[in-house]
């Protein structure tokens, strides 16, 4: 599931072959990818710079962007604009988890409930979270509340469905053994069900994180005056294209880091040894 975000497999193998690098291979290939991206960006910047129609946007090029990014890092602007965004995503994910995990466990355990809930849930899941925007704005007193709601609406589905799938894959013998050894329902939940589905829940949260981070920026185009989405809008309005591009870089790096963190957590909680899951 997680592999879709990486460029790997046949894509990486076609064309030319790299020297054997052993354990450094992953790192070397990663750096190569970053290098290629920077090169494309630089080429794009050159084209814009030399074009009569586009030269006003020359600040989008790597050099001005990275210079500006350095300045923004030094004067604390990066932290100031990322903080509120991270808080909103964190809260949205928190509510999505608090709702998604218990509901996921219930629909995973109860066949009847799953059959009843399936159509409404699939219907709601397919609605773009941003289309809730007018309702969210009316329903919540603050812009912050509306944004957190939108993120939660986007994030709850992957968590819910991944949890339910994990519960369905629990070996029934594990429950029988626990019952046989005198487990009460709380023991079942905390000693058997939750450890058994930990990886599924975390995989759901990882997917949700990706969706939430994507939804965040357009959601922050709403009335708020803080956060990464606001910073992008603000930079556009003030024609500071180097700042705009630097913010885009910040968004990408934070998203990448959060995803890597979730990947590490999954690795830590994964109890499957030596076989595919």
């Amino acid at each position, binding site marked *: 599931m997680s592999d879709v975000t990486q460029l790997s497999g046949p894509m990486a193998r076609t064309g030319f072959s790299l020297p054997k690098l052993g354990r450094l291979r992953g790192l070397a290939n990663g750096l190569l990818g970053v290098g290629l991206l920077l090169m494309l960006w630089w080429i794009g910047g050159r084209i814009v710079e030399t074009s009569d129609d586009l030269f006003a946007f020359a600040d989008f090029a790597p050099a001005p962007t990275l210079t500006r990014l350095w300045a923004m890092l030094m004067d604390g602007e990066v932290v100031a604009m990322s903080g509120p965004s991270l808080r909103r995503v964190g809260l949205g994910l928190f509510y999505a988890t608090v709702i998604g995990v218990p509901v996921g466990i219930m629909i995973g355990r109860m066949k009847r409930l799953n059959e009843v809930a399936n159509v409404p849930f699939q219907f709601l899941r397919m609605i773009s979270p941003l289309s809730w925007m007018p309702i969210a704005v009316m329903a919540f007193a603050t812009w912050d509340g509306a944004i957190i709601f939108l993120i939660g609406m986007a994030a709850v589905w992957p968590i819910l469905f991944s949890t339910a799938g994990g519960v369905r894959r629990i070996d029934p013998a594990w429950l029988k053994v626990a019952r*046989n050894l005198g487990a009460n329902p709380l023991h079942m939940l905390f000693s*058997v069900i939750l450890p058994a589905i930990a990886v599924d829940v975390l995989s759901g949260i990882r997917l949700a994180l990706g969706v939430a981070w994507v939804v965040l920026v357009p959601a922050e185009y709403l009335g708020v005056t803080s956060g990464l989405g606001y910073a992008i809008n603000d930079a556009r309005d003030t024609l500071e294209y180097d700042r705009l591009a630097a913010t885009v870089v910040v968004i990408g790096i934070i998203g990448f880091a959060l995803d890597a963190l979730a990947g590490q957590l999954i690795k830590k909680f994964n109890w499957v040894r030596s076989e595919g899951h």
Partner: protein
Amino acid sequence: MAVTKIKDQTPPHTTDAKQAAPGLTPAPNGAHVAVKGLSHSYRKADGLVLDNMTFDIHPGEVIALLGRSGCGKSTLLHMLAGLTHPSEGEVVINGNVVEHPSPKWVMMFQAPSLYPWMTVAQNAGLGLKFTRRSYEIAKRVPEVLELVDLAAFADRNAQELSGGQQQRVALARSLAPRPEMLLLDEPFSALDAFTRRSLQQDVRKIAKDLGLTLVIVTHDVGEAVRMADRVLVLRANPGRIAEDTKIALSDAERSGGTEAFGREHTRLMGLYADVAERSDPAVDNDFTRLPE
């Protein structure tokens, strides 16, 4: 499963050290079981799975329920464990009617079903944790792991063990809450022959040493002869006790290869074939294959 650690193959008579395992607390005397007029059908429309069974199991006795598939022997075992409720009749253990599962009579299944996110020791201590006796874990878990020859594996992940070792952990897990009775539902049938035999002997020895009542469900005549003091041969459609016979063998004779073992095996095989033929003459009853 094919890889069997040498530990599994060690015959029990060479590991007498565990008899004197330090600080081993003797279990209470084995459970007395009275099965009274037990009948069961899963749905009313279907026929009876069990038909009016009545028998006693004496404390400390090793009893085998022998029968072909579909004779209701597993259903009977689930009822003794309190995991299934009979349509009619009751199971009385030490004077109390069985209504729920209890750590006093623990069932072991064909698959060890250890929790793969736990260590061997954590798995073995689960019964104590579930019955609010976590304070006993530190002392009791090493005891039972010693008993099944896995003391050195306490901190390993359960998945790193061979099939036979995992079944030993399941045995330790069952023994930790000091049960009065163990109920075994074909627990060794997924293991290779060597591992199976050493476990059959070890489990019988442990049950005898601790004074546990032991009930084994099996379709393997050899297993019944090796392990049981008494065998109930069940017939199918509906499940009834067709034969109730004692296995008169000393522990030394049970390891197989002796004349006495062969005689008991042949006798029980004959009973088994008779019963199978009586319960369903249409089925091919070729029991002429040699004992393992």
